[in-house]
Every structure is written in C-alpha cells, then in structure tokens.
C-alpha cells in the first residue's frame, strides 16, 4: 500500500512538472543565447539564400506552411494544407488556393492579408531585384488575392507538386507596407526593412549589428499569447565551429550552437564536460563524387574542354565507373569524417523514405577484387608494370580528382586516391578554395560547373521534401557549356533521352505511388545502375544545446529554428 502511494506520488509529481513545463507564460524564461559561428548578415531570405541568414529570419518571418522534423507539411500561417481532396488544389493541377488563419497580425498590430502574400511574389519577381528565392516561384504565372484571407497561385502548366511557393523558411511572407518602396533595384537600399523586418513570428528585432549580433524580443502580437517562453534572444555570430561547440558544451555561455561540423572525437570529448548535448538529424545532404562524362583534357582547345563535343575516353565506360564505386569503403569514410552524424549511401536522393531507392547493398559493397575484374573486362590491364592500367590503344587510367579546400574533404581525397590506385588508377589530387569552386564565375577554370577534372567531390541537397527540380537537373539542356556561359546544374553532362522521358512522366503525374516509383528509378539510373554520381556519405545536421534548454526539435527539412516559439528553460 505504502509503495503504491509513493509511486502514485512520484507519478503525479512527474505529471505536474511536465504540465508546468508546458504551460508557459510569454517571456517568463528570460534570455536565450544562440551562437552561429557564421554570423548573420541580413534578415531577408529573398536577398540572401545563405543558410545562416534564412535561419535567423525564421525567428521573425513565417511562411504559409512548414515541414516538421518528420518531413510532414504542416500549416503555419495558413489554415490548412490545400490538397486535391479539400479542393485547395485545382483538379487540373494549374492552381492552388491558400487560406490564411483568422486574426493573424504583424508585430506592429496591423492585420496580415492576402495582399501581403501577393506583394511577396511581386517583390521577389520584380525586374532588377536579383531575388535569391526566384526558383520558388518558377512556373508561377499569377498570384492573386481572392479575398482578404484567400490567395490563389496560378501555374503556367499542370504542377503535380504545387506546395513550393510560400512554403518553408526560404520563402516567408513579408509585409507589403514595409517593403512597398523596395521593389526591384531599390531592394538593396532598404537597410531598415532588410535588417528589421516586421514579421508574424515569435520574435522581433530590437538591434541588428551585421555579422555580429542581433537582439530580439518577444513579439507582443504573436498569435499564441503564452509563447514564446523567452523574453529576449541574443543571436551572436562569429568565430569557428570549434569555438562555438566549446561555448555551448564546455563553458555553457550559450544555449544553442548551430552547425557544429567537427571531428567526431572532438565533439564527444566536449560533450563529456556535461554542460550540453549534441543533437543531429538526417536530411537530404549527400557528399558525392561526380563523374565527368566529357573529356576535360587540357590538350583540347579552350571552349571544347569538358563539353559534349568530346566524350570522356574511359569514364563513359560503365564498368570503369562501377569499379570506381566498388573500390570505395564508405563506412571508413564515415568513421573518419562524420562518426554518428553520417551514414554510408550510394543515393542521390537519400530521403524522404517514399523517394529513397534501396542502396544498402551498394553502400556496404567494398570489393576491390570485383572492381579489378571489371576493369579487366573493360580491357584495361597493366601491361608495362608501372601500376597503372591501360587498354590496347595505350589509354592510361589517369585521373584528376578535384574538390574544395576543407579538412574532411582532403582526408577523403587521400583515402579514395589510395583505394583507386590499388585497383590500377593513377590519381592526381587538387583542391580549390570554396569561394572559387562554388562561385560559378564563368571566367574561372576552377568552378564545379566548368569541371576541368575527371571527377569532383562536393555535397548538395534539395529544399523541402520534393526532389523534382533536383532530378530535373540531369537533362541535356542543363549541361554547362560555353554557349550558356557555363551555367547549369548537370555537372556530369548526362544526356540520355530515356532519362528525360522518365523525368517528363515524373513531372506530369500527381499519383503518389507512381511518383515514388519514378523518383526511385531516376535516382537509381544516375547512381546505383550507372554510377554517374557516386554517393559517399549521407550527412546529418549537427547542433548542440545546453542541458537547460527544452523544446529543441532539430529539423532538416526547414529552418533549424522553426519551432523556437516552443523552446523553454528546463529547471534543473
């Protein structure tokens, strides 16, 4: 009897404390300290697509709908998610109608209307604006206010996945009144609006020091009167990932540290200090090796290197590409570079589950013997005994392997070079400063688009949960070439009518099962079947928070700080 009462007591105590944690009052938990080692430059995702800037904007600006941590679309400023069933999406897939929640107001007290949504579209698509999120409005021909709370987006063609514009942290709604004079080229001159946007989010900016620190206070007009639990937020930037991890995990000066990509053992030893904990989650970010199907040889005249006019002498042979993939021990790469926060993959689309091809066999396969067999089959043997295979025409398997300058990438390069040389390749390594490599400057010979190398390594991802535009990059017309000033995302120069036919089917169907099947087929074509893209590591997002901070749900599908309104202080 006594034991039972005691247990009941404990249970009710536990229940009470849980209830207490949930029933917060706005501002009761004081100040929240967030540290971003890449400092925030601007609070307008339309002017900067940089992750850090999009993250910080999420405290103030909000979209119509967001993805939660399970990649489920949830209504945010909208009442519900429009669908074919509830009539929000037109039968012919050419329009989508969103309805705003009742009674939502901006931080200055004025009501949010459909006109603000329409204005946001006009703002981003204005001539001379250079809007970073213009891709979100691709295919949108019109956005109109049906009434004060209803807005209709019309597409030029049937769009089976219409939940892109105004969805996610990258395309939030901005206030028409505040940005009215900032259309087009004037956008960059609106310093006040770009650094202190009026939003609907849980916080509003009180002071903005670019690339240094931002002070926020709770938005007095936030729609949930009990939230946010924190009265103020100090959003500090600067330093490096190691220092940020130290400040959260070891000294406890900060409550939340973002993007702590550090060696697994370094993070573990810091976490042992007991001030905070590491959180990680997987999204769609894949570290991969891209194979060049065209010839990058410097002997070719400028303007013809790495163009479809000259197919690659040996990387166009499927056996050679498969051998490259088989010779890589992905688990070792994960252990060296990422630890718990990475996992081996062969896929280009590693998530969400409905679009993920089964790559378990490929990701685990490390088989140099089989790789060498394949090379023999393709006619490559080491006849002159120099350790490098050549074929009957005297073509040597000699490659240039480039990537950006980064500690983990250089480790990967060294390991992979060793594995490839074991099976009879000759590999030369090159690393390029990230600012140049990813800069896309058509005048530079070192960009990922120009691809003046045989293979190159980097990581890429797609926004949200829909891989349509990601998979649509591998078409003939998206090949970077001198004609299009080296712009295009088809780095590998894949050009196959069969692929494009499958892609067209995928883009045209709204049936979820069919979409899932086609997405997997497209992914497998590029990766597991043909090894044009050699997936290496599925990279997770790593952050850390203090042990006294509750409510963190790390989200890789949207802004990481998406649910900051629910964050609260835990009593220890």
């Amino acid at each position: 009897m006594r034991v039972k009462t005691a247990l009941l007591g404990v249970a009710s105590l536990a229940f009470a404390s849980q209830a207490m944690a949930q029933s917060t009052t706005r501002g009761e938990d004081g100040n929240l300290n967030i540290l971003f080692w890449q400092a925030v430059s601007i609070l307008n995702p339309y002017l900067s697509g940089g992750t850090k800037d999009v993250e910080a904007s999420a405290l103030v600006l909000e979209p119509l709908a967001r993805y939660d941590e399970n990649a489920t679309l949830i209504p945010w400023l909208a009442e519900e998610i429009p669908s074919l069933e509830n009539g929000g999406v037109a039968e012919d897939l050419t329009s989508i109608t969103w309805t705003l929640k009742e009674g939502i107001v901006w931080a200055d007290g004025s009501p949010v209307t459909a006109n603000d949504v329409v204005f946001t579209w006009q703002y981003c698509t204005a001539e001379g604006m250079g809007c970073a999120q213009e891709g979100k409005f691709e295919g949108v021909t019109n956005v109109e206010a049906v009434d004060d709370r209803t807005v209709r987006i019309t597409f030029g063609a049937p769009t089976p996945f219409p939940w892109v514009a105004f969805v996610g942290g990258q395309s939030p709604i901005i206030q028409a009144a505040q940005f009215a004079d900032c259309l087009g080229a004037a956008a960059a001159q609106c310093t006040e609006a770009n650094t202190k946007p009026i939003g609907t989010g849980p916080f509003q900016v009180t002071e903005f020091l670019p690339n240094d620190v931002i002070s926020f206070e709770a938005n007095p007009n936030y729609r949930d009167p009990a939230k946010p639990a924190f009265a103020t937020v100090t959003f500090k930037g600067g330093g490096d990932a190691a220092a940020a991890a130290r400040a959260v995990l070891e000294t406890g000066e900060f409550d939340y540290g973002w993007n702590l990509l550090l060696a697994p053992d370094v993070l573990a030893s810091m976490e042992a200090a007991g001030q905070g904990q590491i959180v990680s989650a997987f999204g769609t970010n894949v570290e991969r090796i891209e194979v060049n199907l065209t010839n990058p040889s410097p002997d070719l005249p400028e303007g013809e290197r790495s163009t479809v006019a000259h197919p690659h002498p040996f990387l166009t042979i499927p056996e050679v590409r498969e051998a490259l993939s088989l010779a890589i021990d992905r688990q070792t790469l994960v252990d060296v570079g990422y630890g718990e926060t990475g996992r081996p993959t062969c896929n280009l689309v590693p998530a969400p589950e409905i679009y993920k091809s089964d790559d378990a066999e490929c990701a685990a396969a490390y088989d140099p013997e089989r790789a060498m067999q394949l090379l023999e089959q393709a006619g490559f043997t080491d006849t002159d005994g120099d350790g490098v295979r050549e074929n009957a025409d005297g073509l040597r398997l000699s490659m240039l392997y480039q990537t950006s300058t980064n500690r983990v990438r250089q480790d990967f390069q060294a390991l992979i070079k060793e594995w490839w040389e074991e099976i009879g390749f000759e590999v030369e390594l090159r690393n390029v400063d990230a600012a140049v490599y990813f800069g896309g400057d058509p005048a530079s010979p070192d960009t990922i688009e120009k691809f003046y190398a045989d293979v190159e390594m980097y990581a890429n991802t797609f926004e949200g949960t829909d891989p349509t535009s990601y998979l649509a990059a591998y078409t003939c017309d998206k090949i970077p070439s001198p004609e299009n000033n080296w712009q295009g995302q088809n780095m590998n120069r894949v050009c196959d009518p069969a692929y494009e036919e499958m892609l067209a089917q995928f883009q045209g169907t709204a049936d979820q099962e069919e979409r899932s099947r086609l997405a997997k087929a497209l992914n497998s074509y590029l990766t597991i079947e043909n090894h044009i893209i050699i997936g290496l590591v599925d990279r997770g997002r790593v952050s850390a928070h203090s042990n006294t901070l509750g409510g963190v749900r790390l989200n890789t599908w949207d802004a990481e700080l998406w649910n900051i309104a629910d964050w609260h202080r835990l009593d220890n």
Partner: protein
Amino acid sequence: MLTFTIRRLVLAIPTLLFIALVIFLLLDMAPGDPMADQPLTIPPEVREEMRRALGLDQPVYVRFGLWLYQFFVVEPLVVIDHLFGTAYSAGQARVISWQFKSPVMDIIVQRLPQTLWVVGSAYMLGVLIAIPIGIVSAVRQYSVFDQIGTFISMVGFSVPTFFTGVLLIVIFSVNLGWFPSIYDTQLRVTDWSSFGQQVRQMALPVFVLALFNAAQISRYMRASMLDNMTQDYVRTARAKGMDERTVVLRHVLRNSMIPVVTVIALGVPSVFGGAIITEQVFKVNGLGALLITAINANDLPMVQTLTFIFAVLIVLFNLVADVLYGILDPRIRYD
C-alpha cells in the same frame, strides 16, 4: 615644417588614388565570387540575376568610377547631413556592402568602438609595459631581469596569437571560468558592475595583444638605449658628476625615444586595422573580423573601402612620424 607638411599632404592625393586603383584591380582580378556562399540549391539563372543586381555586369572602369564618386562625394555628404541636419545626400546611392545590403560606412562606424577599445588599450598597455622594461634591460644589460625580459619578449614575439589566445581561453574560461570566452559587443558601460564586466571580457584579448606589442616595442627601446649609453655626451654627463638616475632618464632616455616614438606612431594604423586573428579567436567582431569575413564572402565594396581607409591611415601616420621626428630632434629640418 608647415610647408613640408602641406607639400606631403598634397603629394599624398595622387598616391592614394593610385593605391585605390591598385586595390580595386587586385580585388577585381582575384578569384572568387560573391555568390559562392549561396547554397547550390539556387538555380544558375537566379545566380546570374543576383550578380546583375550587384552591378557585376558593368565594366571595371564604370564600377571603379562609381566607387570613387560614392566614397569621395556621397559619403562626405552623408556626414555633413548627419552633422548639420541638411539633405544633400538624399537619393544618392551610398557604398553598399554586398553581404549586408547596407551602407559600408555605417557598419565601419558601428565596428570601430570595439576595435578601439580592445586593440587600442592593448597597444597603450603594450607601450606602457615595454618602455620601462626596455630601459631597465638596457641599464642592467645581461642581468637576470634582462635575461627574463629577453625570454618573455621572444615568447611574445614568436608564439602566434591564435595559439596564446586559445590557450588562455582553455585555461581561464573553460577550466577556471574566470573570464568569458566570447566578447559581448552590446555591453554598455553604465555603472561599476557593467564596467567590471567590460574589464573582464577585455582582459584576455588585451593580454594576448599587449604581450605581442610589448615584446616588439621593448626590443626597440632596449636597442636604442644601448646605442645611446655608449655615446660621448653620456660620458660627459657622468664626468660632470651627475647621478646615474639623471643621466639615464634625462639624457639617454630622451635621445633614445626618438626612433621608438617613430615606431609607435607607425604602429597606430594597425590599431584601426584591428587584430584579425585575435578578434576572430575572442569573437570581438571589430574591424579586423569585418575585413576577414568580407574577404571570405568576396564582398568587394567592403574590402575596397576598408583597405583604402587603412591605406589613408598608413600614409597619414607616416607623415605624423616624420613630423614628430623633426619636433623631437632639432637637428632634423625638412625645409
């Protein structure tokens, strides 16, 4: 002396214009692109559009001309407007940073206080420590004090600040918890407790920088003192029966200060330049940190403006050093 100063100032104008041009061309030719920190998910057409919005499609001479106009005409007008409440600069485009989409000069003005507080006080502290050490080391050459002084200045000189900085953080912030490892730029000194907080957060970066500065200046001071100690006028002074204190402090020190003052004056522009590494380590976010992040982000207007301002300061303090030389040493005359 006045005509000399005026002549030098006039001569400085073409020099500075030439420097501005060289910086601009260097930055323009340097590899790297302001779009590099934008995620790969942004389609190439959109990137191209963003580049155009930054004015990158204009030829080099147009962009340089525009910068010159904005820097020498628009920005001074903004200062005048600010001081006198006029509106000369209304509607004129200012030098806009590519990262922040806000005026470069506003950000520099915002960052200046941190840098002056931390790097400036470190410089002053360094000088105040260095001069007595230099004097004593020279007077008691090869004594224990001199040996220790030499050792410490060697350490200060040769151990890089990114090492001493992190070492001090690990000892005093992580293990002992005495000082914060992150500088709070929003702290306003209003009372004794906030003043104490300011002193605590400045302690580590100032110590690191002061050690480095003191090491350098104390060596100059010692060498200069030693040079003078063997001069004839010192022997004369001693022969006249002056006590050692007067000889050292009134005669030797005054003469020895001449080269040291020059060195100190030439070092002042580096205070404004901030201490790039130390600012980064302690997250002071002053001008040094501003410059390095701007370089990383390929924010050309910011890098151009900052480096040009540093060039102006260097030219200016070179002139100050020359003038000081003339004032301290009556034998030197420029006219």
